[in-house]
Structure formats: structure tokens, C-alpha cells
């Protein structure tokens, strides 16, 4: 048997590396932006997501059905509509956008922050759903037990509810992250497609497919997308398994 030709191996590796290295700085910017937007969208939605999920799972209040519907709206609305509503509300002249810009200097329109907002809104229903389900699965009498031991509501949530809902928090975050990575319609409607500011991977691929010479670049970004999506899925699966095993341990 002949020893493997180290050169052939090297060549193959170099080819792959070259393909990766071939990513132009614009493409790298798009990848970087996409990741940043998705991470910020997920982290910023998490506190509100936990609060809304807890309220929907544990409280009874007037307008609960309305809140539930509102949270789920981005899931069923055409993304373009969601993006346009965001533009109307958070745009420079929108009531909320103008207020935030004047008082806090926070501007969403045509900024990457706006893309993060759009992605957060689109991922929010998925996040709330996962967290809510895991809170609803917790035996309320555990929370009652914490109460009789002297823990008020806030302590009970911090020491009992949230630790037990941790698998749901993680799955919800991963789902929101994945949704944010793939978001296109709402983002492009709200903050357009500005390279270096709001052009995510999806938007970049869309632009590239509109130009005659963009095929190779589009393919590279597609591969990157697939890799990121697969990693998110594998991570989500791993978390699910860990959680199931943990829960089996608890029972």
C-alpha cells in the first residue's frame, strides 16, 4: 500500500481553505452582521420573552387572549407586513421611533439596530412559546411549597421557576437565534439592504442573485448559512437531550 500523498491532502485542504478564504470582505461583513444582529436580537428579547411567557403561563388578567394573539402575530403575518408596521411605528417619523430618537438618541431606521429589532420581533413568538410550555410543565405546588417556606413571588421565580424552566429558556433562545439569522422579509422592508449596515447573509444572497456575476458568492454564503443553521440545530438537539435526561433524573 502506498503512503497517502501528503501533497494531495494539502491541496485538498488548501482548496477548501481557499474557498473559505475567498470570502470577500463584503461577504465577511454580511456574516459578521448577521451573527451580531441575531445575538443581539436574542439577548434583547430574552428578558421580555421570559416575562411574557410567565404572564401567559401563570397569570390570569383581562386582555390575556389579546396579548397571546399579539405575540403570535408575527408568526402568521406576512413578514413584509410586519416590517412595514415596524417602519410605521419605529421609523424616523413613526410615533415610537421619533420619541426614542429625540429623547434617547436611539435610531432604528436603516441601522443594524433596526435589523435586530425586526429579527427580535420575528423570533419572539417562537421564544415565548418554548419558555411558556416549559413553565406550564412545572408543578405549581412546587411554587406553592416555596411560598409556604417564606419565598415571595420574585424569589420563587428566581429560585424555583426559572431554574426548572432552563431547558425551555435555552431552546427558546436557540429558536429565536435561528429565526433571526434567516429573517429576510421584515428586515428588508424595515431597514432596507445596506451593505455594511443592514445587509445580512440573506439580504446579501438576494442581492447577489440579482447580479449576473454573483453566483459563486451566493453559493459561498449559502454554504455558510447551512453550516450555521446545522450548528444551531445540533446545539438545540443536544440541549433538548440534556434537558430530557435532567428531567428523567428529577422524576
Amino acid at each position: 500500500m502506498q503512503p497517502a500523498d501528503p501533497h494531495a491532502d494539502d491541496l485538498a485542504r488548501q482548496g477548501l481553505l481557499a474557498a473559505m478564504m475567498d470570502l470577500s470582505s463584503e461577504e465577511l461583513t454580511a456574516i459578521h452582521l448577521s451573527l451580531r444582529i441575531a445575538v443581539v436580537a436574542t439577548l434583547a428579547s430574552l428578558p421580555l420573552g421570559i416575562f411574557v411567557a410567565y404572564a401567559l403561563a401563570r397569570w390570569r388578567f383581562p386582555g390575556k387572549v389579546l396579548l397571546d394573539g399579539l405575540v403570535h402575530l408575527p408568526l402568521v403575518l406576512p413578514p413584509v407586513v410586519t416590517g412595514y408596521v415596524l417602519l410605521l411605528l419605529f421609523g424616523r417619523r413613526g410615533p415610537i421611533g421619533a420619541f426614542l430618537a429625540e429623547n434617547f438618541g436611539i435610531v432604528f431606521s436603516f441601522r443594524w439596530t433596526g435589523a435586530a429589532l425586526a429579527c427580535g420581533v420575528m423570533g419572539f413568538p417562537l421564544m415565548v412559546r418554548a419558555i411558556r410550555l416549559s413553565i406550564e410543565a412545572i408543578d405549581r405546588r412546587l411554587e406553592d411549597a416555596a411560598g409556604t417556606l417564606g419565598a415571595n413571588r420574585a424569589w420563587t421565580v428566581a429560585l424555583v421557576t426559572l431554574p426548572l424552566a432552563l431547558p425551555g429558556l435555552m431552546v427558546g433562545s436557540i429558536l429565536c437565534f435561528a429565526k433571526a439569522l434567516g429573517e429576510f422579509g421584515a428586515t428588508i422592508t424595515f431597514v432596507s439592504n445596506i451593505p455594511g449596515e443592514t445587509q445580512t447573509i440573506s439580504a446579501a444572497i438576494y442581492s447577489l442573485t440579482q447580479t449576473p456575476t454573483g453566483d459563486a458568492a451566493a453559493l459561498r454564503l449559502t454554504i455558510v448559512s447551512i453550516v450555521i443553521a446545522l450548528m444551531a440545530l445540533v446545539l438545540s438537539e443536544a440541549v433538548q437531550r440534556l434537558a430530557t435526561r435532567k428531567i428523567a433524573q428529577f422524576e
Partner: protein
Amino acid sequence: MIRAAIKKTLGTFELDISFENDGGVIALFGPSGSGKSATIGLIAGLTRPDSGAILLDGRPLVDTAKGVFVPAHARRIGLVFQDAQLFPHLSVKHNLLFGRFFAPKAERRIALEPVIETLGIGHLLDRRPGRLSGGEKQRVAIGRALISSPRLLLMDEPLAALDSTRKQEILPLIERLRDEFRIPIVYVSHAVEEVARLAARVVVLAGGRVVAAGTVEDVFGDSAAQAGESRFRRASFVTARVAGYDEAWGLTELAHPAGTIWLAGRAGPPGRDCRVAVRAVDVTLATARPAGLSVRTVLTGTIGRIDTDDGPLAAVTVDLAGHGHVVASATRKALDELGLAPGRPVFALIKTVALDEQTVALAPR
């Protein structure tokens, strides 16, 4: 001291009860669906009554007339659930310490170590609740409630999910908690033997209402309180003082004005008052002091009342000389042939083998 008078409507079920207790153990007794657990929820502050008030040591926990409602976490009332409800993500030790963290420093009068020792859970401290057996879980749950140094301990059928061996293991522990930590307990159960062993007073609930209340002897001496029980489970309770232990024969001698009661095994230290559960089917009635029988325990009394239904059997309540009652099951035919009727003097015979140390409850010291 607890005093409660509350009403609450839950769907079609109406709870309307009142009771009070000065200390020690009070039992809420009744079949499932009688309102026991609903009452516990109201005392713990997990639910609000529609109207009424609950006072603990004179201070209102809830009083709808005055608009007072102390939330559960501020009541300092421990609750032991039927199924433990330990925090699955915390170790046994952290479960035990959970309530202590929230108790004001000045009121942490129950320390960790004696509770761990009494309950025998020292070897479990580093384990997760998922790795405990049912009996171990329940002991930890009792410890967790105790270590929060509660003003009152509520126990909601704490033994119902356990087999009889575990019950016999944990019952004496609860007895020791009652005596050593001097904590008032409201004990919910539908098991006569648990109630008889632990409680000084009983409140019998049925359909959301109090149908009887009083000392264990009075309530269970009245056969009506056990109307729902099968005749094999009906029992009455006799209080007597431990007079001595016969080493040679392995028998405990209990002194009662109506006669000496013998039971198998060692029941307790001499001089201590105790309460013996006597099943109605183990009591035989005689019109004359018998001779030539193997029965050791012969108690004198008079027939208080006879309860019959349309069946062939009757429950005869015998008022014992001195104090207390014992209930005997007999056929109506036998009563007729012997001419037994209320007011007639009678001898109640109890087989010693029907009594042993497990049917004996020591009175609180």
C-alpha cells in the same frame, strides 16, 4: 392557637367550616372530597376564602370583614404535601435550608442538626430528590417544613402515598416532632389509626362541613363519625396509664378504672398516658364476668347506646367505668338473646392479641 371560621365555594362544592385548637395536634378527618385539603390551602394562604377569618395566636392571617390577607410567604406556616414536592433541582441539603434562608434570624428557633438527626436523613444530604425513595422524600419534606421554624405545621395526608412499613417508620417520627419541637400541627388524614396516634383533637369533615369535633376518644367513641367505614375498620379509643411491663411474658399492663388492659409488646414508659385503638370486631360483650376464657382484658361498663341499621349487625357503645367508651360490633340476634339494651351493665372483653404497641399512641408529654 388557631381559630378558623371560613366559607369558600369551589365550583359546585361549598366549604363552610369552623374549628379551633389550643396547641398540640389537631386532625382534620374525613373521606376524600370532604374539604380537608381545601381547608389546608386556606390556612396556608394558597387560596382566599370568600368570607370568614383565620386567626393564629390571636393575629389574623385572613379576615375578609377587615380586608386582611397575609400572603403565604409572610404567614410562616409550614406545609407538608402528600407527595413531598421537593425541589428537584436542589440537593437534599439545599431543600432543607430553603425555608431557613427566608426565616427572620430571631425566629430561627429550630436548628438543622437536631431535625436531621431526628428524621435520620443525615446520609441523604448530598443527594438529589430524584434519587430518594418515597419514605425518604417524605422525611426530607417534613424536615424542610420544620427547619423554616414555622408557627404552625400543616400536614396534608403525609403518609397516604406510603406503604404500611414506611408509615410505621414515619409515624413515631412525627410523634417525636410534636413532643420535642413543640410545634402545633394541623394533620389531615382519612386514616383513623394515624389520627388516633397523633392527634389530641379531631374535626370530622364531610361534604365541606364539620360533622363532629372533639377529643379523639369522644369523636371516635361515637360510631356516627365512622359511619362510612367498613365494620372491620371501625375502632374506638381508650386512654389508660402504662402500669408496667411484664418481662417474662412480653406484655404491657395498662391501668384503667374499668379494668386492666393487656397488650402484646412494650408500649411505653410506666406512668405515661397512652391511647389504645380497639377495633370494634375485636370486642366481645358478656353479661357476667367470664371464667375459663383465654381473654385477659375484661372491662366493666354500661351500654350507652346501640346503633343499628337494617342489616344483621349493630354497633354497641359501652360507657366504661371511670371514663371513655369502647365500641363493639355484635349481631342483633345476640343482643336480643342476651337482652342487652342501653343502661344495662356489661363486660367488654378484648383479646390481648388484638392489641399491640403499634396501636398505641403516647400522649404528648
